[in-house]
């Protein structure tokens, strides 16, 4: 995380620093006076929306180990929440950490519970923080932040007692097998004798651990003295005086600067600077005592950053995509230009070759097509001679039948002769023949028989697709009226009966 505001609050003062990603800057201490609280508010204003990580360094803290039946998921959360509420009714600042599963048959879970038992101490600072609108990431106990040191300083002894001096006093944190066990804050007494009183506190802690059977009297306890300002240089000697089951490691300001990385200016600014640095360094702290209502702003802050990161991702993806597209476009255009050059050369070559061709008004393909099409136009043209010949030959067999008129046509036939939605068919010749038959008016049967015979004869020709009577001399349909006379046939004169015949020749004839 790039920038964050790291704070260490105690009952009497608050130390603030700005973590810029690698270094701790602008370390300031504020006491609980109104003037300093206003100064703190101004300090926050200059933090420009950086998330706040708050360390609680107070004697009003509680750590306890509890063993609970093994559970997981929501069951575990509900069970632990119930237990925490039972233990810490008076404070919203509590948290837990699952330490391990026991080796016993039940394989119960062992939890570390922690709480700030007197939250009123921090309320003035929290009010200022809330008013500032800065997102509060959480409230973390100092000992949990200290655990990071064991890894950085490669402290591998089984029983470690980290001793560090803070604005609030001297803190001793006991770590066994790299796991937190106990932590105590002892306010520094005013006046001299700090070293001796510290040494006495450490010896008391050792006895307390033995009394609780956390350590055995023969176990060697390694006291790690973290001395940010060089005032605890003689503490190791005082602690170890007459003690064979203790050993001491002194880590002075130079070692802290070299091994941890915090610079001397920050160390000189406050005794909380080392832990502020450690708090800034740690990316994920799993022991957050802040209630969800306090950290809701930080959740929004994280979500907001996530959305900004997504925006950046989208922009980068689009940039890469566009870059690839631009590259491909340029490459394709270059290819097109090169092809166009070759085409031009080929066209010039062709032009040179065509100079030796005979002159032509149109390109060769149109030349050939025009000649071919002209031939095809001629080939589909027809005169009515074929149809006239057919009719003439048929008429010779029927002397009583006479042609009075012809309507000949060359055109597209229809695929649906019944009419309606006719579709264009192939080109063919068709004609309507207007004819007359000289017959006795009373001999209707004979007349109709002759006409039908004529049409059949016409239709027998191979070139005829269809021949039919379009109009009879009389209409015998039941829906039409019919009139005439049945006079003596001997007295009757022969009369001409008009009828029409439609003939269609086969396509291609």
């Amino acid at each position, binding site marked *: 995380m790039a920038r964050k505001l790291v704070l260490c609050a105690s009952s009497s003062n608050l130390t603030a620093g700005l973590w810029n990603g690698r270094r701790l800057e602008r370390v300031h201490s504020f006491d609980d006076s109104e003037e300093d609280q206003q100064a703190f508010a101004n300090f926050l204003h200059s933090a420009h929306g950086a998330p706040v990580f708050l360390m609680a360094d107070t004697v009003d803290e509680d750590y306890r180990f509890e063993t609970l039946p093994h559970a997981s998921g929501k069951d575990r959360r509900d069970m632990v929440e119930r237990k925490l509420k039972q233990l810490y009714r008076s404070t919203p600042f509590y948290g837990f950490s699952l330490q391990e599963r026991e080796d016993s048959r039940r394989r119960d879970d062992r939890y570390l519970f922690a709480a700030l038992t007197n939250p009123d101490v921090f309320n003035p600072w929290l009010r200022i923080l809330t008013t500032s609108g800065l997102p509060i990431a959480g409230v973390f106990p100092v000992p949990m932040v200290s655990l990071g040191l064991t890894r950085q300083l490669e402290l591998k002894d089984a029983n470690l007692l980290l001793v560090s001096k803070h604005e609030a006093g001297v803190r001793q944190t006991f770590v066994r097998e790299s796991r937190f066990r106990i932590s105590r804050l002892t306010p520094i007494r005013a006046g001299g004798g700090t070293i001796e009183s510290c040494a006495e506190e450490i010896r008391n802690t050792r006895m307390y651990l033995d009394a609780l059977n956390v350590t055995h009297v023969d176990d060697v306890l390694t006291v790690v003295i973290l001395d940010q300002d060089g005032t605890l240089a003689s503490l190791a000697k005082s602690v170890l005086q007459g003690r064979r089951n203790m050993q001491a490691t002194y880590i002075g300001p130079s070692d802290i600067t070299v091994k941890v990385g915090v610079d001397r200016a920050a160390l000189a600014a406050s005794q909380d600077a080392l832990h502020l640095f450690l708090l800034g360094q740690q990316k994920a702290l799993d022991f957050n005592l802040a209630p969800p209502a306090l950290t809701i702003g930080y959740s*929004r802050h994280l*979500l*907001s*950053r996530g*959305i*900004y990161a*997504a*925006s*950046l991702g*989208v*922009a980068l993806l*689009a940039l890469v995509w*566009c870059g690839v*597209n*631009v590259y*491909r*476009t340029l490459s*394709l*255009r270059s290819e*097109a230009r090169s*092809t*166009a050059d070759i*085409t031009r050369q*080929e*066209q010039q070559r*062709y032009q040179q*070759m*065509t100079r*030796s*061709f*005979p002159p*032509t*008004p*149109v390109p*060769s*393909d*149109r*030349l*050939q*097509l*025009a*000649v071919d*099409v*002209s031939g*095809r*136009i001629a080939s*589909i*043209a*027809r*005169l*009515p*001679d074929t149809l006239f010949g057919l009719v003439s030959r048929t008429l010779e067999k029927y002397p009583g039948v006479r042609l009075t*008129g*012809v*309507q*000949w*046509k*060359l*055109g597209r036939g229809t695929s649906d002769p019944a009419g309606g939605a006719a579709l264009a068919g192939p*080109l063919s010749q068709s004609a309507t023949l207007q004819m007359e038959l000289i017959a006795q008016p009373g001999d209707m049967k004979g007349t109709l028989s002759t006409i039908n015979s004529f049409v059949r004869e016409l239709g027998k020709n191979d070139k005829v697709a269809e021949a039919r009577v379009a109009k009879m001399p009389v209409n015998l349909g039941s829906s039409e009226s019919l009139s005439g006379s049945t006079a003596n046939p001997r007295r009757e004169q022969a009369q001409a009966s008009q009828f029409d015949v439609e003939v269609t020749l086969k396509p291609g004839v």
Partner: protein
Amino acid sequence: MANFRVRDLRALSKPLLTLGVVGLIAAGAVAYSAKAVTAAKAEVKSQDTELIEAKNRITRSGQERGIIERYIDPYRELERNGIVGEERRIGWIDALRTANQEADLYGVEYQVSPQQAYSFSGEVGAGPLTIHQSLMKLRFELLHEGDLFRFFDALAAQKVGRFSVNQCTLTRLPVDLAVPVNQPTLSAQCELAWITIAGPPEEGKS
């Protein structure tokens, strides 16, 4: 809870707006650049096609020369006969007069309609060629039906253009016995289509 969500949304409005704007710009930029790629691909394809065509032309040049040599004379013949190029209406009228005389007809009445697209372009496989037709209606009288074919043969022999007979109606005329022989016995009404194939475009003519 509802207030919490509204407040959350309000707090996240700026990043969400940023994401939206970035997303829109990104989508626009990607779409624009993708369109440029598509256009470039089309350009390459077009250039490739032109190159193939140019190479094919060179390959076909020998064949092309053969086609020109074989078809140039028939094409010039079509031009001379008024089949290719502009239609020659005066020539048609002169040809009608000549055909009337040669077929010994009694005179021909004609009526030519404005030029239009040829009705049977599909049947003759015209392809890219433009073919026009002008319909001519004729009215004349015949001594007998054989005169009809003599007339059309005489008209074709004039070589003033290509025509196709679309329809003909022949009606028998009443015989007047008081009139001497050689009087017309048939009345004919025919429709012809004078067909012309468009020639090369004239330079400077759009």
